[in-house]
């Protein structure tokens, strides 16, 4: 049961439209008729409105008569054909209300992606804050990015050139020092006792 429209704040013209269209309840009609008796201006407005509606109705009828739907049967047949095509489809189409396959997939994809993101974030957080918080983190050096030459196990080990040079030079230094020592001893044999002592202590220190 709808509320009484006369008691609502309807515009007087709107109320007259409902009255002219006979869309008021008997009680509402009586209320409007009472107002019409009391207000001649409202009565004039109603007459104008009815005349206008009549003119528009007549004009529309003329328009429609001038443009008869000659292809109405063609339109009906075309729509009928479309309806048959729709009915011939699997029954799921009718109950599915046109939900596209894409819309069926998306509800799965988004929550799955969100859950995966949360799991990854949680794993990273646990790893950083709980598992290894008090332990020194091992330093992992990837040898691919260092300047040291990488040797394969199967390859023969090449002698280090620098090491060989260093060994050669130290051997020659040692030989030289031995020669110097012999020379000193030879010279010392031909000196007085004090010079011999001095020279021998030099050789011993050297």
């Amino acid at each position, binding site marked *: 049961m709808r509320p009484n429209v006369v008691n609502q704040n309807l*515009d007087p013209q709107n109320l007259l439209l409902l009255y002219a269209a006979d869309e008021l309840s008997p009680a509402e009609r009586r209320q409007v008729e009472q107002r019409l008796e009391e207000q001649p201006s409202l009565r004039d407005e109603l007459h104008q*409105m009815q005349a*206008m509606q009549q003119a528009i109705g007549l004009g529309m009828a003329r*328009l429609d008569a*001038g443009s008869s*739907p000659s292809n109405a049967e063609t*339109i009906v047949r075309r729509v009928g054909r*479309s309806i048959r095509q729709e009915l011939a489809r699997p029954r799921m189409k009718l109950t599915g209300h046109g939900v596209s396959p894409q819309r069926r997939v998306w509800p799965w994809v988004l929550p799955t992606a969100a859950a995966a993101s949360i799991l990854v974030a949680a794993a990273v957080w646990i790893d950083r804050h709980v598992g290894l918080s008090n332990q020194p983190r091992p330093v992992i050096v990837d040898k691919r990015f260092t300047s040291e030459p990488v040797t394969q196990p199967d390859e023969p080990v090449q002698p280090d050139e620098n090491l060989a040079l260093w060994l050669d030079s130290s051997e020659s230094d040692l030989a030289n020092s031995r020669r110097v020592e012999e020379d000193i001893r030879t010279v010392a044999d031909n000196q007085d006792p004090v010079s011999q002592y001095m020279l021998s202590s030099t050789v011993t220190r050297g």
Partner: protein
Amino acid sequence: MAVPSVPESASPVVGDEVLLRRLRDGDAAAGDTLVRRYCEPLMRYLQRVTGAEAAEELHQQTWLSVLDHIDRFDPAQSGGGFKAWLFRIATNKCNDFWRSRGREKNVREGLKLVIDGEAPPSGLEIEGAEQAEKLKAAIALLPEAQRQVLMLRYYSNLRFAEIASILGCPLNTALGRMHKAMLKLRELMEQ
């Protein structure tokens, strides 16, 4: 299992809801009957609101939408029965149509379509024909919301409360649009 249909001519009193139930059960002939029953008012409504060219396509879309949502129709809840539901779907199609194209552009095109889309009446007296042409041009110049109320009222013959429900606006708003449309038409016709 499909329920056997009854031709429109043999039983013209078969209600819309009965035909709709048969259509839902797979009876295409019941659909034909419904389409034929509402073809003229629905086509004219669509023609007046969107123009002659778009009307046929929108008419077809309306019926396919009816078929698509047939399980959702509830005669107990739908205030004007099947007819109100049908015109509600058609109105939604019109709104989609307006949205999908530029409104301003459509006002111009709609006017052109409404004026050019129909042959001039042949059997009418000159004065009547002129008045009809003037009315046609005046209708095309109405704002879309006012034109919708006027055409829904004229072609669907639904009550104003049902029209307001279809348009999703208060009763006072629907009535106000109707009143303004009539005043505007009178003004344009008197020019």
